[in-house]
């Protein structure tokens, strides 16, 4: 039911606004539709001291992504799509992000990922965005 999904999204929004991870901003696009979010991802090398002196080309960039949540949200993963142009092996030309925790649960048809790497309701928006940040920084 959409009711529990909505309650969970509201809870996540509260948590993300009061205690956000470094450089990540996320929130619903409008009150009318709480299942459509916008997220701003920034990379500052200060938060990734291990990534070496050369840094990443994505430093100082602000990357905007859209998240669309299904009505059975914590059970199925949201869809994430970057709206800003981004050149990265894990990001398709149309902005979709290829990251294993966003893949719907169950066995991988290609036999490449184990089901443990895939979506689980324990994941949250914050965790998704952090994984994307580390994907870009790595």
């Amino acid at each position, binding site marked *: 039911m959409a009711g529990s999904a909505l309650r969970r999204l509201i809870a996540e929004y509260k948590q993300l606004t009061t205690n956000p991870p470094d450089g990540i901003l996320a929130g619903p696009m409008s009150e009318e539709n709480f299942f459509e979010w916008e997220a701003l991802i*920034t990379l500052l090398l200060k938060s990734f001291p291990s990534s070496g002196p050369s840094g990443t080309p994505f430093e100082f960039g602000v990357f905007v992504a859209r998240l669309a949540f299904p009505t059975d949200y914590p059970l199925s993963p949201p869809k994430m799509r970057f709206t800003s142009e981004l*050149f990265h092996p894990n990001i398709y030309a149309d902005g979709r992000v290829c990251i294993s925790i966003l893949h719907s649960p169950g066995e991988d048809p290609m036999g490449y990922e184990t089901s443990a790497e895939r979506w689980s309701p324990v994941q949250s928006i914050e965790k998704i965005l952090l994984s994307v940040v580390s994907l870009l920084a790595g």
Partner: protein
Amino acid sequence: MALRHLFEKLPIPSLRLYTSISSLLLIGNLIYINQLIQFSDDSGHTLKSEYNTINTTNFETVSSVNISETLNAVSGTIVKKNESISAESLATNDPLSLTYIQTLFSIMISEPLSLLILVNAAYCALTLVGKSIQLVVFGTLRPIEVQRIKDKFWNYAFYKFIFLFGVLNVEDLNDIVLWLLWFSLLGFLIVFCQLCKDRFELLSVSTSVRSWELIKIIGLLNFVFCCCMSLFGLCLFGLNIGGLSVFFFMLAETVLLSLDTVYVLAKYCMHLYTLQQHQQQIASSSTAIDNSNNNETRLLIAYYCEFIFDVLTLTIDICHHLQMLLHCNIFLSMASLVVCMQLKPLIDELMQRMKRHNLYRLAMSKMEQKYPLLTKYELEEKFKKNRNYSPDEVCSICWERFEKARCLPCGHLFHQNCLRSWLEQDPSCPVCRLPLHDETSPSAPTTANVQPQPAASFNLFWPSFTVGNNARTSQQQQPQGAVGNAVPRQRNHLFRFDGSRYASWLPSFSVEVTHTHNFPFRFGRQRLSTTQLNTMVQHVRQIFPQIPNNIILNDLQRTQSIDSTINNIMDRRIRDLNILEQQADATGNHLDSSDTDSYGSSSSSNSSPSSSDVEDSDIRQTTNINNSTLSELQIDNMMNDQELYSWPLDHRKPFSDRKRQLITHMRRCYIERERSQLQTKSDLLSSP
């Protein structure tokens, strides 16, 4: 449907035009008949000869035989009618008397042309009523709702057309009119039911729902339901006229509609109830315990209601279609093909529903047997024993606190409902991924079972008719623009007849029918209002403060999207901009030469190599701005109006403000970095 695209190309007049045309037609018709009656009053007996002369003149003047033939027929009926009227024509002098209206009406009905005009007027009135109800209850519709209504309407019209002429083989005009009346009433109600359903999707995802909106829609649904009840009466009328089969045809559709209405009504009432309960909870915030208990049973009831509703509607629909198939005895007609085409997905859906219910029951029974239900007391005991748990522990699926919980073998706790809906999908612990495969039952329920088979082919009447039912679910096939909440799925039905396998002269053909499920939250390309455009201009100006408003506005009006305008600016696709930049360059060079800034001239010589080092497109774009258009003055301005930036951003501010703040901060950081790099480079250059 492929047909839909055809229908979209049809020039459909606007409502206003349609209303005016049909009212004009009706008035003209009324005047014409009025004239006729008056005429027959004055000279009833000489009418026949006069009409004959008119006809002969028509034969001479009008070249088209068709028109004169229809005129002939029309005048014939009028003459017949006039004879019957002439007896009672004495009473028809007063245009407001009841008998006058009756005669007027009877003439209208007996004459095919005016009957059609009358029917058209009735449709017009129905559309106007529908439009006004829509405006009162729903306000303006979202583009997605309009699209769905259109789809539904054309599908409905198409299948009813098939039903009328393929299944029932209606030939009499009066019969057709009666059926049309029935279908339009039904369609009218179906449209509203569908609208309510679509609106529910919107309301259930939004946080700012006012309860009077819900109450308005509930009122409408009650009205629709009352109409359904009166439709049952009409069904009995159909029993009198057309016999049992017609009665069943009508009954099935009425029952389906009323079931649908009741279901939507129940959903709305449930939503209203939870909304009010939520508000009460916020007010009192104490009645959490019995609330959760209520929740469990309510969810259970809701699930079973939904299941029964689904199964019932599907079976009735299947029976309806089977009756249609049996009614038209010719099995190999186009109509029976269409009916079969409809029947197949219905049966598939029913099977899937049953499968899903099986999964549900399996998960439920497994949970009951294997994972103990802990009460609040037991939970507290557990928390005391184990230091890892705190009493504030929340269910990791819904993030709400426990009253009762199911405990998995690995020790993780979940709400009963949360756990069940997860186990339906995947048999593992959500937290630690401990596989929970049941050793006794070899078939572990996975999501793959729920998906329909990739291609089911059965031999229908002919060995080479194959019906493929492809459910495209893979990610590559989803349209890239679709950010849908529902699982986007396209169903294709492919009918192929390969005649050459039997005889060389037989043709081969294939028919493909696509049902498109639209995504409820698509970003429609509707025209934007000026305020929206202005805010978009503001957005673009944040990124490119140096570009004048009007240029951005022009481009935005063309592209309707911030992203593409930004791309256009980046890729120098705006002509006005290029001219502007050339001018700016000319003046900029002039300024550079006279500039006595600390690193004025060196910056222009050094910044280009530094920019070529950077490979990433995003940063290159920003560098471009830095190189060509952003003057030092502007940068200084930007650095000076330092907003107080501290992470985390103030959460009392609206999201858009925080967004802007973050972007300006990042831009400032970037410029600082660039400056310091330039500084070090120029230092290096100047030191030897």
